């Protein structure tokens, strides 16, 4: 990476299969651009996301982690996103305590029909994280090649 190149944060997005992943597909088929830094991992439900996965992402050098699920009340599995909401509220406040700014983590509800919201969310989140700069707090340099 050359010194002059623009800083590109690494962003991991967990998307539930039923709403947000479909919303991302819709953003794609409508050609709604969002930064290439965002890489999506498909999970069946947002509640499949173990806090461990998020810690792992930060450990491996991610600069931001976003979690997308169905709107409250619309979960394909009835109540999965409620678990997510509670778990992430706890995890994010703990991460903040550890020095991971709360702007680096986010939970967002995106339905299968909200392609535009998906793209807008990713644009906004990437900008927010980019403004914070690189995340060094949890990164384990031993994992670097």
């Amino acid at each position, binding site marked *: 990476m050359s010194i002059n190149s623009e800083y590109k944060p690494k962003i991991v997005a967990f998307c539930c299969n039923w709403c947000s992943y479909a919303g991302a597909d819709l953003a794609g*088929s409508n050609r709604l651009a969002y930064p290439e830094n965002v890489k999506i991992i498909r999970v069946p439900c947002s*509640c499949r996301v173990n806090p461990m996965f998020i810690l792992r992402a930060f450990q491996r050098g991610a600069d931001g982690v976003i979690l997308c699920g169905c709107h409250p009340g619309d979960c394909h599995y009835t109540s999965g996103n409620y678990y997510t909401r509670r778990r992430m509220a706890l995890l994010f406040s703990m991460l903040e305590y550890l020095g991971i700014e709360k702007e680096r983590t986010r939970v967002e509800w995106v339905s299968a029909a909200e392609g535009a919201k998906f793209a807008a969310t990713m644009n906004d989140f990437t900008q927010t994280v980019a403004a914070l700069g690189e995340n060094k707090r949890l990164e384990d340099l031993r994992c670097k090649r």
Partner: protein
Amino acid sequence: MQRIGVFVCWCGSNIAGTVDVKAVAEALRSEPGVVFSTDYQYMCSQAGQEIIKEAIKEHKLTGVVVCSCSPRMHEATFRKTAQAAGLNPYMVEIANIREQCSWIHKDMETGTQKAIILGRAAVAKVNLNAPLIPGQTPVTKRALVIGGGIAGIQTALDIAEAGFPVDIVEKKPTIGGKMAQIDKTFPTLDCAACILTPKMVDVAQNENIRIFSYSEVQEVKGFVGNFNVKIKKKARFVKEDVCTGCGICTEKCPQKKVPNEFNLGMDNRRAVYIPFAQAVPKVATIDADYCTMLKTGKCGLCAKVCTAGAIDYTQKDEIIEEQYGAIVAATGFNPISLDKFDEYAYNQSKDVITSLEFERLTNAAGPTAGKLLRPSDGKHPHTIVFVQCVGSRCAACADKGKEYCSKICCMYTAKHAMLTRDKYPDTDVYVFYIDVRTPGKNFDEFYRRAVEEYGVHYIKGMVGKVSPQGDKLMVQASDLLANKQLHIEADLVVLAAAIEPDKSARSIATMLTASMDTNDFFTEAHPKLRPVESPTAGVFLSGTCQGPKDIPETVSQASAAAAKVIGLLAKDKLTSNPCVAHADELMCNGCSSCANVCPYGAISYIDKEFRMPNRTTAIRRVASVNPAVCQGCGACTVACPSGAMDLNGFESAQIIAEVDAICR
């Protein structure tokens, strides 16, 4: 160690336009486990699939990564391909380099780099994939149709015709829905009742169909092939099997001042009523909100006049439990409330009416016996103004209206205008429109007839204000083509109110775990290729609950939904999703955390004997997942404090491998 084959699809120029597919195939060749890597124009084509099959055999592949479109599109296709070549279908992973990459990035270098990373994550995941064997579940050969309008009726008739039992649940006392309230249908002008009521009778007489009228779905549990549904049959205080529908009670009831919802409150009915003459089931219903006997215990006149002895004031709501293999949502639509549209004076003047009210005014069974009379004074109107797009196509008024086009208003307004001019040639008819939209068989011809043969004044422009003055309505509007303001002194103003999904649709969608869009219309599994299925397996969509549509479209969709249901019910067994949770018995300490969060009750506990190090045995309580009930959400995997729970196809190790590959 896996032997992985990577197949990069060009998707014509869809992917190859912004992703250097050859570079992606080349870069992924050096990933751990990859023994073969290639690219092809269309991987999903016959020839593309052959390439995958041959590679699986030739290179003895144990895993496959296809870098292509979304797995929601072609995961099933490529799994079948792998299976045909003797590989376990769950050893296939898709890297979505079209929707998530080539379609949103413009620059070749960016696209290629991202595609490589997405491919790398998929390879990392496949390295940890294990073959999965789906289980089989039986199918309950009975369907449930929620809603008894024309959509529900057609779906039920088609399913019943194929020999499967169907239940219709309708919240009103009769089936028929909105079509029963309509006078004539466009573009043929045949009478709606004449074509609907024979179908209603067919439903009543069909041995395979049961009608639960005045009933609501209360609870839905289970999954495709095996839904357990609780239906609340509301007390109608009339024994359905005894009532003959003679209607004497509805004539004798002394409580005469109940707004008649079938005529949209434009006249009154009694407290005991049959909504309309051709109602099915033709059974009286007592409205508990108005019945003097039920409220005060004094009256009982209907029971006295009923020769059949059908009245039962002690009837209670009844809960019926039934099992179904498939469920069809046919919950229909309603015109939006016009309370917030003050500019049209809908709440100020009785002579400002909605199009549905106009239907009742022109219907022979309506409040005026089919004579077009003003609701305020019963006089014949000489100037009628129709206003289109009231609340439709209104992005600016999202607080009270809808952004979408309601689709049916242009055509029914042309119908109303034409019928008015036909029956009352002395009336002046104006139609104010934004655009006249007439796509459909014989639709434009129909609209042209209204303009050319019947002399309806079509004016491009919106009505700004309707103000009641004396017994007239002053309509202020703009004529955009002539570029001038118009003031019309009208006797009757008819508003083409936007249509919206029925209010009950939201709670039904929640019960069915079916998803909805921002307007509360049900979403389809795929907007183009699977338009009558919801993303939830075993739940199908029929009629306007999926989006605005007219009667012919509703009927076609209803039959299409029925065909899908028949296809499902014709199977004896369904293959279940093998991506379910499983517990590592050695790690499980039987704490119940997983069972507490499971939304399906799929986890139970068993006592299991374990051999201990000192040659003794111990009995420990461990979690056991019922794979037929588990739907694979993964809530338990996170709740488990000891890390004993994991999810097939989305194992923690696999997701972590993806995270690592992305962050590398």
